[in-house]
């Protein structure tokens, strides 16, 4: 008998069609998988009840071992046991060797290619190694949920570049996972605390993991998290806290100067245990059996321990200060602080962080699990278990995106159903002589007229150098990233001056609303075509009134009074027609004026040439 989970109202799925999605925290040191069941997000554990899977892969000649057992073998089989492969994601070999000169691995291939490690199973890239970790988590999820995983949200560090993100996606594909989306780790942590539905403001995510420290400053605006700055230290984490205790034991002359592999592992475990004990106790008793069987013991109290780790904590705060500076914020402008990573359990860390930001950080969710939990909440929404949610996060653009051009017309730049991410550019020009600014009105919808579309944002491009109408080249780029965030940039090409804006087109847009808008565009197709024709003719009329009007004012003397009056009269008639709704009438009048003004145009041309040549010698020409 299948076991059932509670669905949202009206969301019960037919048997065998349940939408199962997971969130995966693919960490440098540890990885986790979580899922939402009966509306509650929880991490999924393995058979031994362990939620954390060490991100370690060991290759045997005919099999692959992942997790804790692989980690234990690292010392005896270092070449085939890959730890923290995430550091090599999307990185070329020479880049990896430069950053990590002391790796025990044998690398393969060209230094400009993606780093690959020689193992008993051949050369393996970070993508393939990560895929093994993902595969293991997928199996775990399917074992626990007794169903097929239909989609996953995988988290990546906020600072990951496109190559690293693409590598993560490739790893997921290799593992047979359908990636609903990649999510920034700090954003996932913020989502776990429900901050995405909270009020707008700046959020700091303080992530002190096993081996790395990341601080991210996010801004929540209109339902979108924007990463303002990131910082941290790729070699600072819980392992350093353990090392501090090991070093202290050495200064107490309890340990030999060089440790055997066995002793090193024992001491490391004891130090870790002591650290964890001191999180909730005033002192701890450390007992270690040396290689010769003798026992040594030491008493470490919290005060001593905290004085030992103080320099490490200080390093995290320095990174926080720098991240704030990069984000151009002060500590008191941070609305919420989220703690992520096991090492944030250390009381001194919490205390210093809360002093630094002058507020109590959020820590009610297990800091080891918070990223995976946030990812699973997002996955549950993306797979479609929560249609009532105001987040319409689709992987295609649900409605066309465009901008307003003269006459209230909507020029579509990215058409609907385009998959994201996508970037498209189009060139526009100025309408009037000497025009120095341009207003960009970003709209969404299928209709021809801006008034029938949804207005998303407006901004202006200034400092366009004075040029004749139509001479300026203004490149407008629409870019929608994987998170559905739209950036619109307008740039004047000769000077490079630019201006831009970011919006989330799906923000506050219900699915019903999208359907209504699509239906309207079909129903009004005929009317819209007429409206577009009329608007275009009006724009053309306005252009002629402007340019011919200027010409008449300048070169009145080139015309007989009767001719002048006739042209002025025709222009007046055009102006009147432009106010009415007959596109054909406007068009005919424009053609009439065109014909009637040809002599005048020729006369102006002669005149200006003559003027240019006046007073010049023949041989100068």
């Amino acid at each position, binding site marked *: 008998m299948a*076991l059932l989970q509670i669905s949202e*109202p009206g969301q019960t799925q037919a048997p*065998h069609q349940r939408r199962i999605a997971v969130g995966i925290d693919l960490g440098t040191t540890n990885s986790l998988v979580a899922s939402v069941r009966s509306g509650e997000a929880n991490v999924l554990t393995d058979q031994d009840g362990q939620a954390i899977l060490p991100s370690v892969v060991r290759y045997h000649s005919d099999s692959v071992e992942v997790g804790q057992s692989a980690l234990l073998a690292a010392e005896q089989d270092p070449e085939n046991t890959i730890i923290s492969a995430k550091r090599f994601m999307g990185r070329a070999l020479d880049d990896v060797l430069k950053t990590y000169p002391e790796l025990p691995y044998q690398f393969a291939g060209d230094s400009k290619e993606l780093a690959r490690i020689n193992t008993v199973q051949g050369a393996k890239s970070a993508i393939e190694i990560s895929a093994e970790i993902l595969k293991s988590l997928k199996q775990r999820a399917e074992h626990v949920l007794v169903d097929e995983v239909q989609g996953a949200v995988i988290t990546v560090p906020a600072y990951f570049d496109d190559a690293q993100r693409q590598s993560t996606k490739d790893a997921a594909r290799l593992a047979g996972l359908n990636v609903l989306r990649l999510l920034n780790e700090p954003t996932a942590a913020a989502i776990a605390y429900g901050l995405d539905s909270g009020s707008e403001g700046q959020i700091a995510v303080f992530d002190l993991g096993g081996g790395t420290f990341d601080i991210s400053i996010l801004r929540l605006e209109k339902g979108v998290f924007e990463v303002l700055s990131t910082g941290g230290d790729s070699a600072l984490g819980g392992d350093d806290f353990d090392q501090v205790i090991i070093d202290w034991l050495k200064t107490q002359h309890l340990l030999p100067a060089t440790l055997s592999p066995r002793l090193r592992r024992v001491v490391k475990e004891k130090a870790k245990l002591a650290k964890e004990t001191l999180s909730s106790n005033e002192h701890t008793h450390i007992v270690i059996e040396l290689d010769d069987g003798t026992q040594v013991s030491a008493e470490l109290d919290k005060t001593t321990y905290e004085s030992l780790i103080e320099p490490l904590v200080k390093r995290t705060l320095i990174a926080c200060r720098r991240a704030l500076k990069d984000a151009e914020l002060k500590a008191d402008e941070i609305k919420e602080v989220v703690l992520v990573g096991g090492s944030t359990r250390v009381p001194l860390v919490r205390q210093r962080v809360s002093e630094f930001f002058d507020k109590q950080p959020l820590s009610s969710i297990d800091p080891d699990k918070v990223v995976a939990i946030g990812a699973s909440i997002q996955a549950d929404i993306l797979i479609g278990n929560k249609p009532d949610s105001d987040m319409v996060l689709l992987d295609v653009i649900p409605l066309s995106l465009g901008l307003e051009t003269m006459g209230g017309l909507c020029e579509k730049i990215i058409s609907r159903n385009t998959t994201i991410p996508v970037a498209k550019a189009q060139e526009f020009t100025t309408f009037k002589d000497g025009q120095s600014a341009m207003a960009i009105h970003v709209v969404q919808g299928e209709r021809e007229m801006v008034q029938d579309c949804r207005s998303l944002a407006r901004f202006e491009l200034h400092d366009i150098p004075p040029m004749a109408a139509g001479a300026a080249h203004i490149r407008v780029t629409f870019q929608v990233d994987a998170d559905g965030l739209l950036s619109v940039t307008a740039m004047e090409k000769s000077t490079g001056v630019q201006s831009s804006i970011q919006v989330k087109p799906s923000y506050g847009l219900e699915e019903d609303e999208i359907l209504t808008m699509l239906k309207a565009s079909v129903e009004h197709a005929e009317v819209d075509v007429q409206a577009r024709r009329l608007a275009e003719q009006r724009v053309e009329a306005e252009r002629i009134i402007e340019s011919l009007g200027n010409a008449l004012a300048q070169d009145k003397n080139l015309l007989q009074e009767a001719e002048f009056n006739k042209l002025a009269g025709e222009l007046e008639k055009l102006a009147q027609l432009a106010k009415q709704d007959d596109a054909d009438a406007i068009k005919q009048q424009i053609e009439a004026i065109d014909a009637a003004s040809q002599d005048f145009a020729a006369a102006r041309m002669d005149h200006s040439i003559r003027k240019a040549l006046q007073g010049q010698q023949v041989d100068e020409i």
Partner: protein
Amino acid sequence: MAVTLTEAAAARVQHFLQNRGKGIGLRLGVKTSGCSGMAYVIEFVDDLNQDDKVFEDHGVKLIVDAKSLLYIDGTELDFVKEGLNEGFQFNNPNVSDECGCGESFHV
């Protein structure tokens, strides 16, 4: 006519409702689909419909629409753990036949 639930199920339902932060109870019902005729519905309830019947057991409101009640009258809802998997199970006396997976049934 009534439906009930075990203490274990009641504790989980209350936990999930609290975690969700809204909802007046739990809807139990059936819909026609699946490989063997009918499938169970188990959902959070925010609003009652006109033909809904409300039963209360172990402090949990169980909501069943009139038509579904014909098929699940006498059902006891249980919460079960099977290995690492866990979830709700309908102990429905009306069932004469189930599909292999147990997700749908005949009366």
